[in-house]
């Protein structure tokens, strides 16, 4: 269509995360929805035209489109989980590269060697239900009280962007063997804002 491919909306939908009534309604209203690519090409015009349509009609439209996808809820949930896992793996891969450049020199040595630090799969901060502690340690480092000796780790707040810190956290969490943290990016944003 006008040089663009229009993806299927029925059970053949190629969307990595299957659509729902809610995400369709959001997408038709705003041209963008969480976990989905944003509208482009002629679809942008459609979204623009739909700005005249009221919420109830939009809901009806979203309900109809969602009904075209007759795959079972279980199948759809499986696809969604697999897509999210792939997204997590790609983040972790970037995180792995950051680990290699920023952390590995000390943390691969272990405490036994000079300049060495704890191997991170042994770290508690990786195992708890929130990335908060780990994110704070990476951002602020570990600094002994003024004038005192003690363990020391450099601060990375200036070196890593929020996005890069998120990737690193996702990678480190995977080392713990625990299930992935939810909304690491959101937590990082809060911490860097000082919330």
């Amino acid at each position, binding site marked *: 269509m006008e040089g663009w491919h229009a993806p299927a909306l029925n059970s053949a939908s190629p969307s990595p995360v299957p659509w729902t009534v809610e995400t369709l309604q959001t997408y038709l209203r705003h041209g963008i929805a969480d976990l989905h690519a944003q509208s482009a090409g002629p679809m942008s015009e459609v979204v623009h035209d739909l700005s005249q349509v009221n919420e109830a009609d939009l809901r009806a439209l979203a309900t109809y489109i969602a009904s075209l996808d007759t795959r079972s809820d279980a199948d759809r949930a499986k696809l969604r989980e697999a897509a999210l896992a792939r997204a997590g793996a790609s983040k972790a891969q970037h995180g792995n590269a950051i680990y290699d450049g920023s952390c590995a*020199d000390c943390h691969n040595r272990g405490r036994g060697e000079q300049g060495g630090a704890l191997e991170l799969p042994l770290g508690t901060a990786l195992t708890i239900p929130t990335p908060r502690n780990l994110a704070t340690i990476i951002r602020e480092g570990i600094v002994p009280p003024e004038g005192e000796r003690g363990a020391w780790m*450099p601060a990375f707040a200036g070196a890593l962007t929020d996005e890069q810190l998120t990737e690193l956290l996702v990678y480190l969490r995977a080392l713990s063997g625990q299930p992935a943290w939810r909304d690491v990016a959101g937590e990082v944003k809060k911490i860097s804002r000082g919330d």
Partner: protein
Amino acid sequence: MAKLDVNGRVLEVQADGATPLLYVLRDELGLNAAKFGCGLGQCGACTVLADGEAIFSCITPVSVLQGRKIRTVEGLGTVEKPGPMQQAFIEAQAAQCGYCIPGMMMRAQALLERNAGASENEIRAALQPHLCRCGTHMRIVHAVARAGELMRGKS
């Protein structure tokens, strides 16, 4: 191939993305101001700026610096026309062996760009991550305070 913006010039570098910036600056780009001290982010000799923030270049891989403005002592001025920070370090004769000085200068630059009127205590606190084995700390603190004066337009 990574692109790095160093001292206002965009340069293509061959090094792998996980390579610490310090090695790229020194070995590939021939910018030798930043020094290798410990390689562990513990001494401060490798400090440079990324978007105005002081970072340890020995533990910052180039992959994370795409699109960010990196500055080194080479970017603060020239031999003929030293910048305020360089001028102040010359006036105060703050270098003995000089190995820690480029790192100190860059962290101080970051501090003074935020607050050119930083107090002596603020200067000391900011430079806390930097080690100097010659013991020229007093002159370094004086030099940074002097650089602040120069930046505020005092002669």
